[in-house]
């Protein structure tokens, strides 16, 4: 067991874009954080940090999982507040990338730190070993690099870079802290320029830019080819550059040029002419309104370097290339790309070839294993597969031969030979024994660090398989299974997007019955995201179109029975939520004994968007909760949830879901989604061990009554009169209000759950009969977007 690193309080030095966002995410994670910057020349001395904290509330995507957390960050300055440092267990330095400034700062803070504080730099380019030398000798063993990716809340990757002197226990402690508390994917990197992610990622951008010119392709064409078409983010290449900022891009490229003189590709580490031209013209990308792209009104124009002007952007992949990219078999796809005469295909082959070449060439210097490279690129750049995985999937030897041929023919960007191991007859770098370590000349298994025992299903590398457990019972909709012998069943849906259809409903009810006989608890967990996109609209619309309203109503009743079965199960049912958790999926978690939700959970009762209302017990449950929270005046507690449901709001995080009233205070938030199942099983087992009993049936629920409904309706009248809501919006919301308030009865009347469920069904079916609701459902099914009619 490595020593546990306990971190009560942290300090982030530097309130710039990264520093402030790192502070925000530590705060999300419940780490008390002091955010330092230089003393302000005017106003309050911590003004710079204060302003950065204020700005966190406005950034998109939101760095804070709950805006109220901004108040928890402590603003500070180096003149007055260095005293804070003596209580701090972790310091993350994130100031500008100037060696001299960083060294000065380290000298300044050194004497204020406790004897056990860990110090880490978030530098993305400077040498960690050189930085360590600025620290007093007794601190060097507590210093390392910890490199977050922007935006730090959302990018899974953190590179951890030990120096020659860093204690192993410090790295082990930080790895556990970053993985569990902060929720990050940790890759241990060597102290080489730009570490792993940016070394490979930026090279890939440079190679793409180089070949854009070689093949004379438009920037928008390249983006069409290098985005989702090849498993990379929508922003692809040039849009990413615009978002990052072209000046920042140039700076990163310059760092490579300055620090990698011996790199065989060094000649390419200079700012491409077109990029320099844009910078000289003050077009720095999104922040200045123009870069490779320019937004004019609603249109996005793309730079045409020949015309030196922006032109309408409409480029797509050529038909031939689109057809090649649609091929499922990677080997065939790569063969066809390389063989094609289409410049787009040749371009794609070229960027992959040079990326593979570069990555293989440098693997031994920059990373311990090929796994680390692939994870760094996947988690830091959002690619579906890392470069080695892509290569291996396409047929290692074949692709290696092609690369070698191209090097020989002078087609590759560098004539540096492929490392010998590439062509030693292997079929790849990831295999049963682990992933290839070029430095050690052996395959290495995954890290044995105990923190990874919490990841029952870690992010899998190409070809990696995990124990799929033992099936206890299954039908067409669900599988009930166990993993290990803890007696906790795992219930997973088999449907696409884990939507809920009749098989799932029947399956859940039956599986709970099985669990009551054979198991001690159940966790509803999906083997992949999302938790659930809600009810299967296709089935529902089919019944409506055929006028089968009775069947429709019995489907709704079955939904309600399922929720109630979850709630009143004799073994605790824990919902393990990550990603989307909408509609019926949300109702299931609301009826669970406890929800364990990953931070990145997007939870909502979105039925109003398709012209319906939550009728799987969701509104009933909200009414019950309001009555429990405020029996004397349930209306008071309903105000917030009414808005949440009527506007079909979806939480932007699990923490926000608590604010919206969609998660309970007692529900557990997990920062690392790969630990979700582990935590949920622990919670379920602990509930069982604590002598779980389901809640007693609620038979005396005080409701807000007709006065409550009238008060909600009065606000709706104004929204409609102001054209902020359509007539149908108001009709839906009025029915939501009526259900939440218990119908047209006196306020304070006592009702039971069956009464509220019947109201849900009544309004659901009546709405479903309307043309406008049917139009909404059909529209969402075909476009995936809500219709406002």
């Amino acid at each position: 067991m490595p020593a546990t690193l306990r971190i009560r309080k942290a300090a982030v030095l530097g309130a710039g874009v990264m520093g402030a966002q790192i502070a925000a995410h530590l705060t999300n994670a419940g780490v008390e954080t002091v955010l330092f910057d230089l003393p302000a020349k005017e106003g309050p001395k911590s003004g710079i940090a204060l302003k950065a904290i204020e700005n966190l509330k406005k950034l998109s995507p939101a760095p804070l999982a709950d805006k109220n957390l901004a108040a928890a960050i402590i603003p500070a300055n180096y003149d007055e507040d260095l005293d804070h440092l003596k209580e701090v267990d972790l310091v993350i330095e994130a100031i500008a990338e100037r060696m001299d400034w960083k060294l000065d700062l380290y000298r300044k803070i050194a004497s204020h730190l406790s004897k056990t504080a860990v110090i880490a730099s978030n530098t993305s380019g400077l040498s960690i070993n050189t930085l360590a030398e600025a620290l007093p000798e007794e601190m060097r063993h507590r210093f390392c690099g910890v490199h977050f990716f922007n935006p730090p809340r959302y990018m899974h990757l953190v590179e951890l870079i030990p120096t020659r002197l860093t204690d192993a226990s410090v790295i082990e402690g930080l790895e556990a802290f970053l993985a569990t508390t902060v929720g990050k994917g940790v890759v241990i990197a060597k102290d080489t320029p730009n570490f792993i992610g940016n070394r490979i990622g930026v090279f890939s951008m440079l190679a793409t830019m180089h070949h854009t010119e070689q093949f004379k392709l438009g920037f928008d064409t390249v983006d069409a080819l290098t985005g989702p078409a090849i498993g990379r983010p929508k922003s692809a290449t040039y849009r990413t550059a615009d978002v990052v900022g072209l000046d920042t891009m140039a700076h990163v490229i310059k760092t490579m040029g300055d620090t990698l003189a011996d790199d065989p590709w060094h000649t390419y580490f200079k700012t491409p002419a077109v990029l320099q031209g844009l910078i000289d013209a003050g077009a720095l990308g999104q922040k200045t309104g123009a870069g490779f792209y320019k937004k004019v009104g609603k249109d996005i124009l793309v730079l045409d370097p020949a015309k030196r002007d922006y032109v309408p952007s409409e480029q797509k992949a050529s038909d031939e290339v689109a057809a090649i990219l649609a091929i499922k078999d990677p080997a065939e796809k790569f063969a066809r790309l390389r063989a094609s005469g289409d410049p787009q295909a040749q371009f794609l082959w070229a960027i992959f070839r040079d990326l593979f070449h570069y990555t293989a060439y440098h693997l031994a210097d920059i990373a311990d294993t090929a796994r680390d490279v692939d994870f760094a690129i996947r988690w830091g750049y959002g690619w579906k597969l890392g470069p080695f995985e892509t290569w291996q999937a396409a047929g290692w030897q074949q692709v290696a031969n092609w690369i070698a041929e191209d090097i020989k023919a002078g087609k590759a960007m560098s004539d540096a030979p492929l490392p010998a191991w590439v062509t030693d007859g292997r079929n790849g770098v990831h295999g049963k024994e682990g992933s290839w370590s070029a430095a050690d000349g052996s395959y290495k298994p995954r890290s044995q660090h105990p923190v990874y025992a919490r990841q029952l299903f870690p992010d899998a590398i190409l070809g990696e398989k995990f124990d799929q457990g033992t099936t206890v019972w299954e039908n067409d909709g669900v599988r009930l299974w166990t993993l290990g012998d803890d007696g906790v069943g795992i219930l997973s849906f088999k449907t696409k997007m884990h939507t809920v259809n009749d098989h799932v409903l029947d399956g859940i009810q039956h599986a709970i019955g099985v669990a009551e006989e054979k198991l001690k608890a159940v966790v509803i967990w999906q083997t992949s995201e999302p938790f659930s996109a809600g009810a299967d609209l296709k089935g529902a619309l089919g019944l409506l179109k055929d006028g089968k309203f009775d069947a429709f109503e019995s489907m709704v009743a079955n939904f309600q029975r399922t929720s109630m079965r979850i709630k009143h199960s004799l073994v605790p049912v824990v919902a393990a939520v990550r990603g989307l958790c909408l509609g019926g999926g949300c109702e299931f978690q609301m009826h669970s004994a406890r929800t364990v939700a990953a931070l990145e959970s997007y939870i909502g009762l979105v039925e109003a968007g398709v012209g319906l209302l939550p009728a799987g017990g969701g509104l009933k449950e909200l009414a019950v909760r309001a009555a429990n929270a405020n029996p004397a005046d349930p209306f008071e507690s309903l105000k917030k949830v009414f808005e949440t449901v009527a506007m079909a709001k979806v939480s932007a995080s699990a923490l926000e879901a608590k604010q919206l009233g969609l998660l309970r205070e007692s529900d557990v938030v997990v920062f690392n989604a790969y630990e979700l199942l582990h935590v949920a099983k622990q919670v379920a087992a602990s509930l069982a061990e604590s002598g779980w009993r389901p809640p007693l049936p609620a038979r005396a629920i005080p409701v807000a009554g007709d006065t409550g409904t009238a008060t909600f309706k009065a606000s709706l009248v104004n929204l409609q009169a102001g054209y902020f809501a359509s007539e149908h919006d108001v009709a839906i919301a009025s029915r939501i209000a009526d259900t939440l308030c218990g119908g047209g009865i006196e306020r304070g009347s006592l009702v039971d759950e069956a009464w509220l469920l019947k109201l849900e069904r009544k309004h659901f079916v009546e709405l479903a009969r309307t043309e406008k609701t049917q139009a909404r459902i059909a529209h969402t099914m075909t476009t995936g977007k809500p219709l406002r009619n």
Partner: protein
Amino acid sequence: MTKQIQDAYIVAATRTPVGKAPRGVFKNTRPDDMLAHVIRAVMAQAPGIDPHRIGDAVIGCAMPEAEQGMNVARIGVLLAGLPHTVPGVTINRFCSSGLQAVAYAADAIRLGEADLMLAGGTESMSMVPMMGHKVAMNPAIFDNEHIGIAYGMGITAENVAKQWKVSREEQDAFAARSHERALAAQAAGEFKDEITPFQLDDHYPDLANDTIRTDSRVISQDEGPRAGSTPEVLGKLKPVFRNGQFGGTVTAGNSSQMSDGAGAVLIASEKAIKEYNLQPLARFVGFAVAGVPPEVMGIGPKEAIPLALKRTGISRDQLDWIELNEAFAAQALAVMKDLELDPAKVNPLGGAIALGHPLGATGAVRVATLVHGLRRHKQKYGMVTMCIGTGMGAAGIFEAL
């Protein structure tokens, strides 16, 4: 003109400065404290009177609950240090409550039931929001003919703007002028006579130094007027009550501000004036209130003003000064258009868009503005008028002496 037993005279009139709600200078000042402040101040302006002779204190408040519940009138009287013999009654006619209080108090004198009366209004919109803390609507309002009851004031302003064809540009220009006039009036010291400065003593925790920090300031000016509120700046604001894409024109900038404040007047009979050698500021000439459809409540003054003029026998053109409450630029302009009021005479010192609108206090606040203003500018007849939620209008006429 109705024959009355005796005339009623305003012998003292004052008000607090008006603060912005909910985050302005009076955010922590209780409405009963503001009321006690103005009662003490009007009493001080009429030295020598026997407070036991005061028949009643009629105080307006539009959301009389919580800090301003519990019959705030009586609490204000007692907090002001008046003897327990002085009664107090809180009345509510929404935005005209303060003016209605003056009218009811004057009526008690005109009927000969009292020789001295207190009237006023108080409202903390910082502490008690519009519609109060607990809104509970009657289900019966959704029968079509009553839907207007459900309308928020903003929608009624949009309705008036549409029906009376008041454009966004006209509203913004009017709002800009309100700020311009208010700033000029402040610079010229126009409000000095009517405002009794308020000593603020707010206590806040100073966590860093582990002490209590006291914010002690004398507030002597209205907080609302804002330099730079030009039509161009106001024109950039989004309509808040009706979607701009569907013709919405009413914005936060061309609506009255939410405010905190209080005002009070002392009203006396001729007999009391002689007995205590009081200096009357103005004679209360008359008052009228009228009803209009709730969905266009802002047009209320259009009915109330002619009624008040008719009752008092005064013609529109005899009025030198009209304090027309700017609930919304849209309704103020509609009323002015239909009644052909002279824009120069309406709100010469700015209106609620700049000066704020502490609902139930506004009537009393603007009576203080009017009676001091008429005297200072040596004018004779003036009027305070306003629209009232759920569709009413009120107008009171005063004659400077």
